[in-house]
């Protein structure tokens, strides 16, 4: 959502901001992992955004602006500080992930559509990984938008996203391997029957 027209005052803040409500709430809940805190975070985000709407710069990305406010509000909250302090961000210089095995967590995930397992794994990711995966794959933001939202260079977006995905796959692999074994047993049992 890019601002255009005569200026922020010519458009209603409500008209621009309310269509983002569901996705902002979803993102807030993922960050806080708590409904009440998510509601507080969203409410505070909208209040801050409304107050700062007159200073919103023309030609910049309104959605990224809203997400940035929400994220910054979260990071300065008690829950946000706790989340970022207890889970230090790994260095960004990790090398690229390479070969993928034939029987991968992704394959198993797709076959079983184990959404709950994936949700649990996303929820357990460090906040910096969780947010970048959500912004890219759930909110379908471009790298540029993510860079604006997180206030980091695009190169950092790419490397952090790569490591976030690798971390997610690594965490899912043992669970899916266990699940796969169970499924194989069940499959064999069924065949036996």
């Amino acid at each position: 959502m890019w601002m255009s027209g005569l200026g922020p005052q010519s458009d209603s803040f409500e008209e621009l901001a309310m269509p983002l409500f569901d996705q902002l709430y979803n993102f807030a809940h993922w960050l806080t992992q708590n409904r009440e805190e998510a509601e507080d975070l969203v409410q505070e985000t909208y209040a801050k955004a409304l107050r700062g709407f007159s200073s919103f710069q023309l030609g910049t990305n309104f959605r990224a602006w809203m997400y940035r406010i929400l994220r910054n509000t979260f990071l300065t909250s008690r829950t946000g500080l706790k989340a970022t302090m207890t889970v230090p961000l790994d260095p960004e210089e990790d090398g690229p992930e390479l070969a993928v095995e034939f029987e991968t967590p992704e394959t198993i995930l797709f076959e079983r559509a184990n959404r709950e397992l994936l949700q649990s794994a996303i929820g357990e990711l460090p906040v910096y990984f969780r947010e970048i995966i959500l912004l890219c794959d759930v909110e379908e933001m471009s790298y540029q938008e993510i860079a604006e939202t997180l206030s980091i260079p695009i190169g950092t977006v790419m490397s952090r996203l790569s490591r976030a995905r690798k971390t997610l796959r690594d965490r899912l692999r043992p669970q899916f391997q266990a699940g796969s074994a169970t499924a194989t047993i069940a499959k064999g049992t069924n065949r036996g029957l």
Partner: protein
Amino acid sequence: MVCESWKAKLDTYLDGELPSEEMRDFDTHVHNCSSCAADALTRVQMKRGIQAAGKRFAPTSEFRRRVQSTIATKPHRRFRLTWMFAAALSILTVASLLSTYLGVQRSRREQVYSEIADLHVAALASSSRVDVVSSDRHTVKPWFQGKIPFTFDLPEVQNSEFSLVGGRMTYLGQTPGAHLIYAVRKHQISVFVFQEGALRRGWDKSSAVTKELSFNMATWSQGGLRYFVIGDASTADINNLAKLFKSTSS
């Protein structure tokens, strides 16, 4: 590993973030490389899985309404303030215009009163105060025929304390009119009659006696004519003579 360099960019490719030329090269490679194609497929599935799993939390409608009401009130407040400001500005403008208009009207009225007072004083100071000397209204009224473009009735004052001295032609600006002089005790009272339309002034609807340049004056409109009664007599005398004219003309 022939595909290492490709796989390093696989996520960026699937996110659609490679430069267009590299995207085309990648498309070609994926079509020809089963390993990269399989890897791309699983990662796309992963993305789709995350996308589906990620859309997990929905706000309650009550919470939505609450937030919406908080952000909707301020624009409305701004609108109300803007509207109030515009209304206040309009009121000020109208008040200013009205004040100017009333000021102009008042100024014109005061000018007319001043002229009427001048005419009254000038006539009394003249050696021939009246052109037609008669206490008989049936003499004075016909005298004005052909001299002024209208006619009017004079009250019968025989049984009152007033006496008709006579009449004369007069002009208020360029408007011709009748000037009648009455006496009450030792006071001289002028009665002026003009065509209302010819004067084109704004007048108070009230015909109450007012003080103009220390003279008492009453003015009213009746039958398309504008009457002025002015003199140094008491307010009651001015008012009584005015009543006599009003009752005669009605």
